[in-house]
């Protein structure tokens, strides 16, 4: 049994396998299918200061080896999370992290401040990359200035591990990673979804109510892997890699490209127990290749 422990800032993870925000609910949705305590951590659903109804149906379109979504951050707001959801999930024996979204800097700050008070939430993931909301969201994540501004503001009020989730819908993701590193982010996670579109040729209308939506699933993996590799060369803070991971081999690829930990998103829908299988697969791989710790593998391209 190899050592699977990794650290992201002050955050200690029992293994590098995490589940991605918006694809894993609050964790409990998956409790019938797997032992939640066996994964390194869970990023819960995107949470905003105020409740959001999200976008109109249809919000989803299947595409080759993936899907488009336009959920639009439907959630009941941070107060509901704190009062009604947090008490039900805080005993889950793995790291719970909240994905914080917003449309203004003040919203991000207020939301982060409230979550800072929760004992068993050791980290937040700042979502500056959601393509499915009209204001804010991705707007902050597509320029170095926008990204810096949000991170600077949140860093002042948030004292635990601050992870910033980057948008792939940019020309140079490494420069955005550098900007948030400069502002004091403890880690970056990437990628969020790629902006995409699908058309129903029978009705000659877009499939999604919002016309465009976020592409995820195995089809985005090569793009995500490339971006992790580019960021690894550009920043010193840990990288959490995600985008299209559907088995342990994919996870190893991300770690070799420079990821300290990985997240599994869309593939949870296909196999709700995939994350545990990835933990097992990584462990066997490490043993087979004689690595004592998964940390030896990070950025270990030959």
């Amino acid at each position: 049994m190899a050592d699977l422990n990794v650290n992201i800032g002050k955050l200690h993870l029992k293994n590098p396998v995490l589940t991605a925000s918006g694809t894993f609910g609050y964790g409990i949705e998956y409790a019938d299918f797997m032992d939640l305590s066996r994964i390194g951590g869970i990023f819960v659903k995107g949470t905003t200061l105020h409740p959001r109804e999200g976008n109109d149906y249809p919000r989803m379109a299947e595409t080759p080896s993936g899907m488009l979504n336009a959920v639009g951050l439907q959630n009941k707001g941070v107060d509901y999370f704190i009062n009604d959801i947090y008490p039900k999930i805080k005993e889950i024996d793995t790291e719970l992290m909240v994905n914080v979204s917003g449309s203004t800097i003040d919203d991000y700050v207020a939301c982060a401040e409230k979550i800072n008070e929760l004992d068993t939430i050791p980290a937040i993931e700042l979502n500056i990359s959601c393509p499915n909301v009209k204001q804010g969201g991705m707007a902050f994540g597509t320029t170095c200035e926008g990204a810096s501004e949000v991170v600077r503001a949140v860093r002042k009020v948030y004292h635990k591990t601050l992870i910033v989730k980057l948008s792939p819908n940019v020309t140079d993701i490494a420069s955005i990673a550098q900007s948030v590193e400069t502002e004091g982010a403890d880690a970056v996670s990437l990628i969020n979804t790629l902006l995409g579109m699908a058309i129903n040729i029978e009705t000659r209308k877009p499939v999604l109510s919002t016309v465009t939506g976020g592409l995820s699933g195995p089809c985005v993996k090569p793009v995500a892997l490339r971006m992790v590799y580019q960021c690894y060369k550009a920043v010193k803070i840990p990288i959490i890699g995600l985008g299209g991971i559907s088995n342990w081999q994919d996870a190893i690829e991300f770690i070799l490209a420079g990821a300290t930990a990985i997240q599994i998103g869309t593939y949870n829908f296909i196999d709700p127990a995939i994350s545990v299988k990835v933990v097992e697969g990584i462990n066997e791989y490490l043993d087979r290749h004689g690595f004592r710790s998964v940390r030896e593998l990070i950025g270990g391209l030959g």
Partner: protein
Amino acid sequence: MKKYIDDWVVRENRKLTDHAFLLKLQLNRELPEIHAGQFVQILVENAENVFLRRPISIHSVDPETRTMDLLAQIVGKGTCKLANLHVNSSVNLIYPLGNGFTIPINNKQQKLLLIGGGVGIAPLLFLGQTLKKQGFTPIFLLGARSAKDVLLLTEFQQTGEAYITTEDGSLGEKGFVTNHSLLASGDFDFIYTCGPQAMMLAVAHYAKQHQISCEASLENRMACGIGACLCCVEKTIQGNLCVCTEGPVFNINDLSWQI
């Protein structure tokens, strides 16, 4: 209710029409509790460009033989692949999902009307069988394009009273389900419906006019099927709710339908 993920063995794959088929699946252990109106998420393997699981209603369940029947219509690549599954091959299901229909508690004389259109009749047989076991006599009203599209009529007739409408008049009364003379009285205690959206809207309209309680089973597009992704939402009086967990069965008064 606890959910499971298991491989089931295909015991029968019966072609009913050019577009419809019945899959009989068997589990290698005792079946858990499953309610009428619930559905499964079926993994379609080795089908080109099929990525997500497909939601299919539970058509019937037999705890004695540990089998479950699914009734499906071929509309695209996933259902086409399922129609060609070989006997003794296995399929992976996440089940049982969703809430299920409300079963009335007392007064077995109540007139319960089950209205289905097309393959929307799928969950109604299981519902009818459940009602029959409880001592009710379910009344089925089934709509189809033409006589050859009327599926599994004998099974419905064995479970309750069955009435038919076809669009071309080749079996039963001609027209849509809501045109059937059976509805003239307006004398029903509860209506359950599943089928094309337009049909369910018409049924809901009828139920509302006659002040009859009515539940509809929705078929919104799904990704996860377990309440994790929020893709399948329907507008309701409580805002957007997930059809996969809060439904697929809704009381029509809770929906934001214009009826």
